[in-house]
């Protein structure tokens, strides 16, 4: 027990090593790094995609501006702190102020094709509609329809308007989704409601610590911001849910790829350009750019620490994009607007992507080649080139591309084609060779019998079988046919030993690790480069240890007849199906594609469930239980495992505190001594 604690302690502490990375600075005059999705599905550095080109120069003051919108050569800014709307051109020349003495902290702004200006005003809890000259035309107050809900608040924060004049409003605590009003202000319904999430941590806190507030628990998170594209589709962003970026069709169904790369911090604003690229800015001032399918193209940008470096932002509140593709970012702390200009590299990628989406593969191939030349690890380029290769029926090249890009669907398709071709060309040979093998086998068998070799082999076999460990290990095969009998033999006749069981544990572990490497990469969810031996050890053996220990403790209390030794030995023998099957399955996976994924998953499932069934039988036989008692025993064991894990965690926390204390004490003494010297 002590040892286990210690091991567990060591394992868990090793998980908490602080990592800090450093990179050589390269001196290219951009204060941030740019990343893209790399071929390992993570972010990899790439060429600068947007250059900071300056701060928009103007001679009137912005005051904590919260939103900005670009339309027809003008920037419209919700100048929240000054309670007005600023209209300026792209050189910073003031066109006019709007809504002075009407607005009270306007936080959202939108301009439609007729240059009608919609302002979401948080202070007055209204949405205002102005014309370009600044004349107030209409006010949208809280809907009176019963469907809206009388107790439901109305604090408009952000707004977009579609071509028919329908308003989409997000607001503080608008947890029912985006409020949709028609042009007259009638409530049409809620749009794009987020699911209320099931939070494991919350449940855990609830169950064991009683920390969460029952009332606040099950409201879905309110969308933080909303955008509209030229087709009239609505996009929302919501922090802390998955996926946090959604694109809705008219019936309020998310049509964006759910595996879209999730920014790690709070989302602030988004913009959709004419080519349906999605731009996103987060609290940490990172700007994300996705293509229309939700593939991440770039991430860049960062927070300013007070030196006011061009390109860094202190407190981003909004971003918008002009006709030339320059990004404008509004900063409500420095009260300014920064401009980012795209580089040729971005142009290349946009062009390639667009050509590809338009079906002009030949043209796009050239451009993608150039992108790939500039960045070999650009996953999207490799993937696109692979798909182009597929179209050109260059399956081998495609396979290679997809492997580099880690594009499993593509790889599977390419492999299917290659396999198909191979089968078509070599199908005859395959069948003939199978027939020959069968024939040869029978001939050999016959010959062996004829010349009495069978007896000799049997003799040798018996000799080997008489070696103790071999005999013990071979018990593993017997368990498939007669599980109950085998367990009887293990327990009563001591036909297996600590040694044989330990050997099997090690074999299983090695097989599990090996299977990561052997299995075709389309079926492995682990990046083999990320495998850390110690974690794998902890995962496999930690679980086994916990299981054996918990079961032993429970069984001794529940009149179980099994000893610790019996449980230790029998547990691993229950995993015989896995030990026997996992490697062959991994090997077979190399000739499978996603079309046969069912075969693979199902076989896996069988191996695991078979093992579980054997566990059940093992408990029953070893402890000599009835079915009911067995179930009870297993449930209690699992419960005990959870409790032990929890206990170890608490012990770990306490030890951590203790070591902190000792460290502080030590430091204190050192400082005192140093100071008095």
């Amino acid at each position: 027990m002590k040892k286990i604690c210690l091991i567990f302690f060591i394992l868990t502490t090793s998980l908490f090593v602080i990592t800090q990375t450093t990179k050589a600075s390269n001196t290219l005059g951009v204060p941030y790094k740019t990343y893209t999705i790399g071929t390992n599905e993570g972010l990899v550095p790439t060429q600068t995609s947007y250059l900071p080109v300056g701060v928009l120069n103007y001679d009137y003051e912005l005051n904590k501006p919260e939103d900005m919108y670009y339309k027809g050569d003008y920037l419209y800014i919700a100048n929240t702190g000054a309670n007005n709307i600023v209209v300026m051109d792209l050189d910073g020349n003031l066109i006019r102020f709007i809504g002075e003495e009407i607005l009270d902290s306007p936080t959202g702004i939108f301009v439609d094709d007729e240059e009608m200006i919609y302002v979401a005003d948080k202070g007055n809890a209204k949405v205002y509609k102005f014309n370009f000259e600044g004349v107030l035309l209409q006010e949208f107050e809280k809907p009176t329809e019963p469907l809206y809900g009388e107790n439901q608040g109305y604090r408009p924060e952000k707004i977009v308007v579609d071509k028919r004049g329908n308003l989409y409003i997000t607001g503080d605590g608008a947890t029912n989704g985006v409020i949709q009003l028609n042009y007259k202000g009638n409530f049409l319904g809620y749009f794009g409601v987020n699911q209320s999430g099931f939070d494991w941590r919350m449940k855990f806190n609830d169950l064991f610590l009683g920390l969460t507030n029952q009332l606040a628990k099950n409201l879905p998170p309110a969308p933080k911001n909303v955008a509209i594209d030229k087709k009239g589709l609505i996009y929302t962003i919501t922090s802390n849910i998955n996926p946090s970026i959604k694109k809705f069709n008219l019936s309020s169904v998310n049509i964006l790829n759910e595996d879209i790369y999730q920014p790690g911090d709070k989302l602030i604003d988004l913009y959709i350009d004419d080519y349906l690229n999605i731009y996103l800015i987060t609290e940490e001032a990172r700007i994300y750019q996705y293509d229309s399918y939700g593939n991440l193209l770039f991430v860049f940008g960062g927070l300013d620490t007070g030196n006011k470096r061009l390109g860094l932002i202190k407190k981003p509140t909004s971003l918008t994009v002009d006709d030339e593709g320059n990004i404008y970012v509004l900063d409500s702390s420095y009260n300014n607007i920064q401009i980012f200009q795209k580089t040729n590299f971005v142009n290349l990628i946009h062009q390639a992507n667009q050509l590809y989406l338009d079906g002009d593969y030949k043209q796009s191939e050239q451009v993608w080649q150039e992108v790939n030349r500039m960045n070999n690890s650009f996953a999207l380029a490799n993937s696109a080139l692979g798909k182009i290769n597929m179209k050109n029926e260059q399956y081998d090249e495609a396979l290679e591309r997809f492997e580099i890009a880690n594009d499993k669907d593509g790889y599977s398709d390419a492999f299917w084609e290659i396999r198909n071709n191979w089968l078509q060309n070599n199908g005859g040979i395959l069948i003939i060779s199978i027939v020959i093998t069968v024939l040869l086998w029978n001939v050999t068998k016959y010959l062996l019998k004829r010349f009495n070799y069978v007896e000799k082999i049997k003799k040798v076999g018996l000799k080997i079988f008489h070696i103790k460990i071999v005999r013990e290990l071979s018990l593993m095969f017997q368990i498939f046919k007669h599980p109950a009998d085998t367990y009887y033999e293990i327990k009563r006749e001591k036909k297996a030993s600590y040694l044989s069981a330990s050997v099997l544990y090690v074999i299983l572990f090695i097989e599990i690790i090996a299977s990561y490497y052997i299995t075709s990469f389309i079926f492995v969810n682990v990046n083999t480069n990320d495998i850390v031996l110690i974690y794998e050890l902890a995962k496999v053996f930690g679980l086994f240890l916990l299981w054996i220990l918990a079961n032993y403790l429970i069984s001794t209390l529940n009149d179980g007849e099994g000893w610790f030794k019996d449980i230790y030995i029998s547990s691993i023998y229950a995993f015989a199906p896995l030990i026997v099957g996992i490697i062959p399955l991994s090997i077979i996976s190399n000739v499978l594609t996603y079309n046969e994924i069912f075969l693979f998953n199902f076989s896996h499932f069988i191996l695991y469930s078979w093992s579980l069934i054997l566990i059940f039988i093992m408990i029953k036989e070893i402890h000599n239980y009835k079915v009911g008692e067995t179930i009870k025993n297993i449930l209690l064991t699992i419960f005990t495992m959870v409790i032990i894990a929890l206990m170890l965690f608490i012990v770990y926390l306490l030890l951590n505190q203790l070591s902190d204390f000792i460290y502080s004490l030590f430091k204190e003494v050192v400082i005192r001594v140093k100071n008095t010297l």
Partner: protein
Amino acid sequence: MSKILYKALIFVVLGISISITFMISHAQQTNEEDVVEFELNNDAIYNSNRFTQVETNFDAPNNPLVDLEGYEYVTESEQLILYMNQDDLSIRIEDKKTGYVWGSSFNTEEERLNRTWRARVKSAVWITYFRKTNIREEIGEEAITTSGTSKINTVKTENGFESDITFGETGIKLKLIVRLDGKGLNVTIPSDSIEETEKYKLGNIKIYPFLGAVKTTIDDITIPGYILVPDGSGALIRYQKQSNMNGLIYSKSLYRSDVGLYDKTIDDYVMPEQSIHLPVYGMVHGVNHNAFYAVNKGGAESSRLVVYPAGKTTDFYWTFFEYIYRIQYEQPTSRDMGSVVMTQKNRTEFDASIYYEFLNEEEANYVGMANQYRNYLDKNDLLNEEQFDKKENIPMRLEILNSERKKGLLFDSRVKMTDASDVIHMVNDLSHQDIDNLRLVLRGWSKGGLTGTAPDYFPFDRKTGGKKGYQLLIDAMDELNIPTYFQMDYTRGFDNAGNFNQMVDLARRIDGDTISYEVDDYEYHLLKPSSTRKIFENTLEDFEKNNIENIALQSLGNILYSSNGRKIESRGDAIDLYQNMLKKYNGKIGLYEVNDYLLKYSDEYFDVPMYSSQHYKFTDTVPFVSLVLRTTVDAYAPFMNYFSDINDGSLRLIDYGIYPSFYITEESAHLLIDTPSKDLYSSKYSSWKNTIVDKYRFVNDALKNVTGEWIVEREVLEAGVVKNTYSNGVMIYINYLNEDITVDGIKILGNHYHVIGGVA
């Protein structure tokens, strides 16, 4: 019974699993998009501080704030006359040629300044101190005239004066030595003249902080001109009307801040700021009229460059070096948050010394400053004298990655990127394209691959050629007369490397910790400067054994830190140690982003900064560093693989007079994706060859006309169009714009350049 149960269970599970796996379905894809064309055309960038701006105001300066009233004559040289005020030791310097008077202070009566500020402006020296109290050390400040009780004892010397100052409030004593010297003025505070009291300890000293201060208001600039800050490649802060745009202080440690004293946080997204590699600043009063530049020649390693723009606290632009003798630091007392503030116990020892040189007429601009500063360095024997044989064509650096380490399940492996024999092929291949003036730098040539090996490098990596392979390479390059540099790093020690002792060789932060970082799971620690030297010198015989002659030291040129263990090694000590370590080395040495104190020992200057940190308050980026380096050392750009716009970048190379560089491998860079070198995203020789040849020729055709020459005039004709005039009369016009342009009757193609007076 049990058998039936067993079978039944299997069937049930089978059934369930079949239905579950069938239920898994695939996600759908979305709709089609419209046709699109992109065009890049935006000149905003040329008006940003990424580029040098057009000079519009050449008016002569007239400074109403500075006159000679109340100042007595001290001495004069051929160019200058020195005056001083006995009460506050402020000075006036008159330029004999132009008659312009520079002042270290100005008349404060009519200015928006309170008593404290007036004292600060008037005084020659202004200190901050730590006052010991029972609880903690308090920070205070005192200028010479703050209390009215300071004692000054001034003695006139042959070419200046010396003053013993005792501050009235604190009783801290120091000696100020001012000496006129031709075109320049030397100001020194010797370390041994400083006396502190029991109660008051010296924090920092500012010397003549208001020398050349310029007043601007919301609608007026009294003197046109700018401040030169050597941030990165160099930046200008033009005097501007007060506005919210420029109201921030610039304050930066020379040679980056000392990681032995200050914490350094690292961000995955935000790049560290550019460093100050040359300890200078300059002020221009009227472009092409009057200017001075100041060299921090003593105590630079312990000082900051500070610029106050007008609008921040005062109406003045003023700039100075701040000498730091003591700092306060946070001493962590627990592993999470707890810490106490402590004051550095021992004063850092150095003789603070500044050399001001006054320039006029055509020299009164940043180009003139660069040229005069280079002369200063030359005169003081601070430059490398060895020169390569000049060839007809410009040199190019090829840095090559041989192998990189990769984490494995049980053991690390190496990813082979370039074999030694591949390098020979590449060089031969390039020479067929008439590119023969190469500098090769090899990385990751040693047994462990690139990352994680420092400071333990021998023997050669067998996977990429072994001793034999590399020997062949060295011989082949010798024959072609191509210098081959082996890259190493002796300032850091990786946990999994040998050749150093974790107990004695590691540098210590002031709070007692080691200075440790991590690169992709490989932890390393900075080595004590003395250990760096020791280990380097112990390795020399290995160099010899392996026939390594030329070396490239990765971080030595730009990293400077103190070690604060039992025996303190200050940054000043580190400079001495590094200089002595390189002084004795016989082969060629290539250094990266070199700080001035190692210029003498660097035969190649790699990774010249090409940009500034681009603070809002900067109005321009200028090639100050590369202007200084002209004719003294071959300067190479950072790797051009990383340029987002290689055309624009190549033009900048020509503009700044620096040479091309590429980072090359034989294999495709995607193999590096899960290694510490993952930021090398494109380097395959075969896919870069054409670009290398193209860009080399592009740059060579311009710069081969001016090898060994310096720029005498750099003129921005309009935003994005630059004209450089070299000492041999050759003029190079550079057009960064996309469209063609005609200037001085010459048509320059878009994104191109034009050479006049070259060798054709």
